[in-house]
Each structure stands twice: as structure tokens, then as C-alpha cells.
């Protein structure tokens, strides 16, 4: 990982102790040598996430959301700036693209992170069964990915990211391919897990509703090259009732605010 993790960071207790993720003046560009072309993906991105916080990132397509998340996961090198992650475990990531291994069955895919750590077969089976039940895939435990629908594949990725219970969850549109009913169930489950375990979650979504349902804060990014244009606190107390919330004026104000920000500088 190309992420600086200063020693003091780990021993918490300091004034800023609660910040688990700290991104300062992050700049990321891609260089295409064959075309001698530079694509600036994100400029001067700044934000912090406190321990146990649930943060959603929204922003126009191509603004650099995925890029920022990949940098947090240590999968991409930043060009300049600083990223600090204060965690004993590597963040778990749900990728935006299809990312299940075609050569493993559904349950083997979910068990993958556990099997790497040499967890006993019995323990793996138990944990995988839990997550398959959670994501509604129990019946497809032994199916191969090519036998699944798009939404089912996405659920496998989510189950895999949750399986080994890491401190930080990075989720890139994890419920994008799911119908509202299934999405609702999984949102609820995610919140339940988050509340119980005190995980830190960074969650990319395109749905303002979803962001307001889930997040403590919503970070809004500008069009490419993306930068953070707003950091909005979501004032609703938990547990949130989706229907109730919509009766609240603040919900519509916030929705309108996000829309306004997103529409401010349309990409085209």
C-alpha cells in the first residue's frame, strides 16, 4: 500500500484521534503514454472521516469518485497530496465493476478473503451461510457466476466485502444494480451491521435518497476533475424511516441542495 500510516495515528487519543481517514490536497491524474495525453481525475480533494462514521460520496459520472476510493484502498497511486488511513486492517472494498471470480462458486467467492487467512473450513461455512442468507443467495451457493443475474453478482461482491469484518468499508455503488426492495433490505442490513460493529463506511452512490437514508455526512464532488464542493451533515436521527423522512422538510431541502450542487457545473 502506498498509503502513509504514521505510527502515532494508530495510538489514538490525540485531539484528531477520531479521524480514521484523512485526505489532504489529493491530486490524481492518469497519463496515457501512447497518446501523450493527461487526464486529470481529481484535484485538491480534502476530507476526513471519523471513526465509526458513515459517509456517502455523490458526484457526477466520471468525476473521480472511484479513483478516490481506489486510492483509499491502496490500489492506485496518488500524484500529490496526502492520504492517511488509521486502521489495523486494510479497508474492504466493494468494486463498482463486476468483480466475482468466474472460476469459483458463489460461496467460494464469498469465502475468498477468509480462505486466504486460513480460517477453518467449519468457520468459513458458517460465516458464508450467514452472508448468503443476508444477501438472499442461499439457494445459489453452488452456482457459478455466469449463472447469476447482474444484481445477484453485485450481491456476491457485497457479501465478500463483509465476510471478514474489517474496520473500514469502501463501497462503490454497491446497490446500484438492485431493485428497490432488495436494496432496502440490504441498506437496512448494512446499517444494522454498521451500528453494531462501529465500522467506518465510505459509500459512493448516485441516489440522493440513498445517501440521505444512510449517511451521517454527504460529500458532494464537482464534475471532473473532481474536488469536494460540499460536506453536508444529515440531521436525521437513527433509525431512519424512509417514508417518515420524506415528510420532513429538511429532507427536501437537503435533496434540493445536493441537486443544486450537482447541477451547478453540469459536465455537458
Amino acid at each position, binding site marked *: 500500500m502506498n498509503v502513509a500510516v504514521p505510527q502515532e495515528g494508530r495510538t489514538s487519543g490525540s485531539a484528531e484521534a477520531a479521524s480514521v481517514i484523512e485526505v489532504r490536497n489529493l491530486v490524481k491524474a492518469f497519463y496515457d503514454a501512447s497518446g501523450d495525453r493527461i487526464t486529470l481525475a481529481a484535484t485538491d480533494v480534502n476530507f476526513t472521516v471519523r471513526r465509526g462514521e458513515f459517509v456517502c460520496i455523490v458526484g457526477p459520472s466520471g468525476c473521480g469518485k472511484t479513483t478516490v476510493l481506489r486510492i483509499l484502498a491502496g*490500489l492506485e497511486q496518488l500524484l500529490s497530496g496526502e492520504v492517511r488511513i488509521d486502521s489495523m486492517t486494510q479497508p474492504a*472494498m466493494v468494486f463498482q465493476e463486476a468483480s466475482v*471470480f468466474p472460476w469459483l462458486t458463489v460461496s467460494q467467492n464469498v469465502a*475468498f478473503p477468509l480462505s486466504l487467512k486460513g480460517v477453518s473450513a467449519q468457520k468459513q461455512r458458517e460465516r458464508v451461510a450467514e452472508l448468503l442468507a443476508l444477501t438472499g443467495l442461499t439457494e445459489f451457493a453452488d452456482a457459478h457466476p*455466469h449463472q447469476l443475474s447482474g444484481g445477484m453478482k453485485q450481491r456476491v461482491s457485497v457479501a465478500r466485502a463483509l465476510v471478514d469484518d474489517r474496520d473500514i468499508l469502501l463501497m462503490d455503488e454497491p446497490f446500484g444494480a438492485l431493485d428497490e426492495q432488495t436494496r432496502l433490505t440490504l441498506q437496512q442490513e448494512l446499517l444494522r451491521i454498521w451500528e453494531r460493529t462501529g465500522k467506518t463506511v465510505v459509500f459512493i452512490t448516485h441516489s440522493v435518497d440513498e445517501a440521505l437514508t444512510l449517511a451521517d455526512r454527504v460529500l458532494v464532488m464537482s464534475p471532473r476533475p473532481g474536488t469536494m464542493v460540499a460536506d453536508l451533515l444529515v440531521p436525521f436521527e437513527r433509525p431512519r424511516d424512509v417514508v417518515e423522512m420524506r415528510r420532513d422538510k429538511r429532507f427536501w431541502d437537503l435533496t434540493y441542495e445536493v441537486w443544486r450542487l450537482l447541477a451547478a457545473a453540469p459536465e455537458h
Partner: protein
Amino acid sequence: MTTAHPSLSPDEIERLKAPARRERIYRILSYFSPLLLLLLWEVAAQVALIDRRFFPPPSAIAGTAWQMIASLELFDHIGATLRRVWVGYAMGAIPGVLLGLILGLSAPARRVLGPIFAALYPVPKIAILPLILLIFGVGDASKFVVIAIGVFFLMFYNTLGGVMQIPQIYLDVARNAGATKFQTFRRVALPSALPSIFTGLKLAAGSSFIIIAAAEFLGARSGVGFFIWASWQTFAVSRMFVGIVVISALGYLTILALEALERHFVPWAKH
């Protein structure tokens, strides 16, 4: 055959399963399509389209083969050849796959070793035979090595090609899941490259039999290659063809076996 299903009629189940069943039957039938070649050859020889002195018809060759089977003469040769091919194949395939995986995943290794392998690959084996004999002796060891060299490069380049084609996302997933370098090899690169590795294994199987035939031309007193050579030297054309057919059949069966393995180990691919 027609298992019951709550919402499908037996007729629908029948139709649903038919393609898979048909596929299986077609596959089994297709194993025999090389017999077409023999038929063509027989006809061509019978109507004197081809010179029977050089291409005796399969029926005549079968006669010779029958005598040789009866005299058990062939089986020793087959045994010797198979043993050499097996050992040489394993000696070449294992390092070939391993180095293919390593060079595929490690850019520095690829930069330094890649050109070295590229330079060694076209070295004519027949020219370095003296060197091999000198190092490995005149016995079977040098035959193993000759096969191993041929197999190695096929496996190396096919594995490398397969690894280079692995979608980046799979490596990202492995990394994010905390896979060690070795686990990434074993659990991601290897299975992901399996289709290419199987292409290599099939090519290498065919090549092994080609190479062993050539190696047994030089300095052997057993093996199907020696048998072909000896028949060749005496213009015993029927016998020579028995040898050629036998060695080709051995290669063919090996390739079929590898294809069956591939269907088993790469169940997610089309076949």
C-alpha cells in the same frame, strides 16, 4: 432421465435437457472423426490416387499392425516412448507454468528474464544436442531434457500470455482481500490463466510426441520413434506407418484426455 420439476412439464424438461445430451453424443461421435482421414486415405490408395509404395492403404497397414500386436513387439516400444514423454512433459510443464506465472505477475522479473527466454527459445535444439548429450549422457535423461525444453517454452509463453490477460479487477480483488504474492499466484493468476494453460498443455502434448519421435531417431534402441526410424532405414513402409499411426494415436488420446480435464477444471468456459 426426465427428472420431475414442480413447474415444468416432462416434455419441457426433455426439451431443456436435450441440447446438453445431444452435445454429449456429438462429442463422443466426434472423437471418431479422424477415422474419416483413414477412409479418405484408403480410397485414395485403392483408386491409385497416391503411390501405394509410399502410402500403403490403411487396410494393409492394419494387417502389419495386427501381426505386431500379436507378437507383442509394439508394446515395449509404446511403453518406452510413453515413459519418456511423461517424464519430459512433467519436467518441462511445471517450471514452464511457474515461470510463466512469475514473469506474468512481476514486471522486474519479466524485464530481466523475458528477453533471456526469448533469446534461448529459438536456439535450434538439434544443434545443441551434443551439448545435451555431454551434460545428460546418452541415456534417457537426455531425451527427457529434449522434451522438457520443447514443453517448457510452450507452457511458459502460454501461461505468460494467460497471466497478462487477467483482468486487472481480479488482481485488485486479491490485493484488497489481503492475498500474499504466493496466494495471488495460486488462487487468482493460476485459475484465471487456466484456459491459456490448457492451450499450452495441449500444444505441449502434441509437441512431446513429435519431439520424442525425433529424439528416438537419434541414439535409441526402443520406443516408437526408434521403430519408425528403423523401418524407415529399411524402407519397410507399412511398418513405418504402423509406428506413425501409433505415435499419432498416443498424442491424440493425450490431447483428448487434456480436453476432458479442461472441461472439468474450467467449467465456467465454453468448450
